């Protein structure tokens, strides 16, 4: 069966520090991968998605970047965090070319920028 791992679960970082959140998927090949952010009391905002290695699309201009160094690994980064980067970050995957676009989510990372 497929599983998705996301870490760390909680992170407290000072303003101006770098960020690296990692997500890996097991049990499937060539998945579509996604990064979302949920701000407090709000819905899910798509940040990045990837349909293959080095194929990454950005949905919202911001202080963040994403990379996919391996087929089942997706990394969210920032060189210098802003206060507004605080939020709940979610990684998700879906079957590449699947007829049903069902996305499966990781447990999320709570990021607090102070």
């Amino acid at each position, binding site marked *: 069966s497929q599983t998705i791992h*996301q870490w760390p679960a909680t992170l407290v970082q000072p303003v101006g520090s770098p960020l690296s959140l990692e997500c890996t998927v097991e049990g499937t090949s060539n998945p*579509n991968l*996604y990064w979302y952010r949920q701000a407090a009391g*709000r*819905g*899910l905002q*798509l940040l990045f*998605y990837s*349909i293959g290695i080095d194929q990454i699309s950005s*949905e919202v201009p911001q202080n963040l970047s994403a990379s996919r160094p391996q087929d089942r690994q997706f990394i969210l980064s920032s060189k210098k965090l802003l206060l507004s980067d605080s939020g*709940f970050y*979610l990684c*998700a995957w*879906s079957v590449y070319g699947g007829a*049903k*676009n*069902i*996305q*499966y*989510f*990781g*447990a*999320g990372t*709570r990021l607090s920028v102070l």
Partner: protein
Amino acid sequence: DQQVKQNSPSLSVQEGRISILNCDYTNSMFDYFLWYKKYPAEGPTFLISISSIKDKNEDGRFTVFLNKSAKHLSLHIVPSQPGDSAVYFCAASAINDYKLSFGAGTTVTVRA
């Protein structure tokens, strides 16, 4: 531009009664619709979905209804249980699109 809208931010229902969650969409290219359930500090979990070629899909206590002409879908939970207390997100995707558009969510509270 919010293409998927959940106009009720919260819903309170008594245990054993029916919960009805509503969702409206504006993009006529959407052909696949999903509901997710989310507990605090956890990722959303897939609940149920429906294709645009159907108007109803049922899975146990959960039923999703789709009205394409009205661009409206709803999720019925019968009977509601305390464990159903969570945030429910409606989502939609268009043909050959990798992305999902999410609504803002409805927080359901099931009272004992």
